[in-house]
């Protein structure tokens, strides 16, 4: 079950806009996400869900407005501190985005290498997280030799191995069969129970129905009024 959210906002958005030329992908988004919250961002395709996630880790800059992540103002963050910001997130991308030429182990260890961790610690942590996602015997496999569900589990392992405060998942079950999707969701919930904030962009209403969490609805780049309860 979901742990009660701490009432301290870890992410705050004030009047955020994102424009691509004349197209408004996000318009006037104001939002608080609290520590240890489990949040779904939902809406039809093109609603701006993925764009909203990208703004949080500076995959793209906001065209207007302010975003605070754990006290960091993203509009003022220097280029040098962007890696610092991104290490606060674990990101699960829509299409896995694994490095095809690197083994499962190397894909996951990359995060810890980038953090400058010692080699023996990296080995220990990667094997531990691969055990958590059930891929301990596939550590030397290349991603393209794995099934979609297994690739997504590698992506989850990569996202959580650095023990980030916030987990972002963009359509994490979009291309998976129900059984694999269930495994992925269970992993995300398990990580949430360890105290992390989990934000999932999805249009899978069945999955939202089965999982407790706050639901934020987007349509045409605008936030729809939110229900007061934390159930859909």
């Amino acid at each position, binding site marked *: 079950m979901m742990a009660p959210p701490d009432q301290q906002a870890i992410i705050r958005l004030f009047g955020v806009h994102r424009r691509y030329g004349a197209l408004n992908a996000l318009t006037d988004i104001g939002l608080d996400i609290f520590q240890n919250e489990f949040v779904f961002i939902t809406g039809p395709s093109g609603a701006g869900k993925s764009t909203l996630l990208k703004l949080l880790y500076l*995959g793209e800059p906001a065209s207007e407005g302010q975003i605070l992540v754990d006290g960091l103002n993203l509009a003022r963050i220097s280029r040098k501190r962007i890696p610092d910001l991104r290490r606060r997130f674990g990101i699960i991308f829509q299409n896995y985005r694994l490095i095809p030429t690197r083994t499962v182990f190397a894909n996951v260890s990359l995060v810890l290498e*980038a953090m400058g961790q010692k080699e023996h610690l990296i080995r220990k942590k990667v094997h531990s997280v691969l055990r958590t996602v059930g891929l301990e015997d596939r550590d030397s496999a290349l991603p393209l030799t794995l099934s979609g569900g297994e690739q997504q589990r590698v992506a989850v392992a990569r996202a959580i191995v*650095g023990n980030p405060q916030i987990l972002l998942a963009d359509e994490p079950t979009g291309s998976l069969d129900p059984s694999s999707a269930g495994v992925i969701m269970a992993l995300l919930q398990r990580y949430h129970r360890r105290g992390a904030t989990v934000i999932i962009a999805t249009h899978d209403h069945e999955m939202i129905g089965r999982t407790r969490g706050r639901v934020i609805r987007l349509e045409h780049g605008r936030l729809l009024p939110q229900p007061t309860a934390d159930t859909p």
Partner: protein
Amino acid sequence: MNRILKRALADIRDNGFLNAITVATIALAILISSAFGLFFINASRLMTLWQQGVRVMVYLQPEFADAAVEDLRSRLEKLPAVGKAVFISKDDGMARLKKQLKHQLSLLSNLKANPLPHAFEVQLRPAVRDWEEVADLAAAIQKLAGVAEVEYGQGWLDRFAAILRLFKLAGFGMCALFFIATVFIVANTTRLVLYSRREEIEIMRLVGASEGFIRMPLYLEGILQGAIGGAAGLAGLLAGHLYLSAQIDPGLLPSQFEVRFFPPALIAAILGGSMLAGCLGSLLSLRQQLKT
């Protein structure tokens, strides 16, 4: 550092063909420019040896009085470039000539009088290395009273010195061109590697890798390419040097001269230059391609 080196070596292995082409091109550039350098160094040493053996012959006017010999010797030996001035009377000169022409003495038999002038053979100080100094000395001697003509083999030595200067200029020019070419070759390879790995680099950034973490192995790759290419080029040059040295007839060169390879310090400098070119190539490419 160990991890960065491992990643650089893995990258080189993963992009083997591109890296092999780059290393071969760097090796060729180093081979050609170093061959110029080696030729120049040996030719300069040969020139110095010839220069050290140069005797400036000072021929005196026919009316030169024997009594003035010591005075002229003293004035010659006061010139800074002169080590020793040996007087050769017209009779000594004829005796030397007869000795040199011992098989063609009939050529001299019809002479009614000795046509040779008195002369001084001027030996230079060892410190005199610059050919221009020899020319200046000859000009200064020419101005002395009683001197008719000064001869120091300037004709062919001047030409040799001019050719050597030309080689020196061409050598510097080629070294500069090859250095620039190496930088661009490495830059181009790095660009292709970056293009083939753009998705991987993007993922690295998204998982929080710093620019240093991404760039350092690529700089190291450039340095390694430069080092391997430079070493291969020098090895090729050494092989060529050993082969050609064995082919040269020792009788054609001064006895104290041997064709030498680069001294260790210069080998280190060439390798350093090659590594620098590799690093600059990577730097150039990364600055263009990895704008965040």
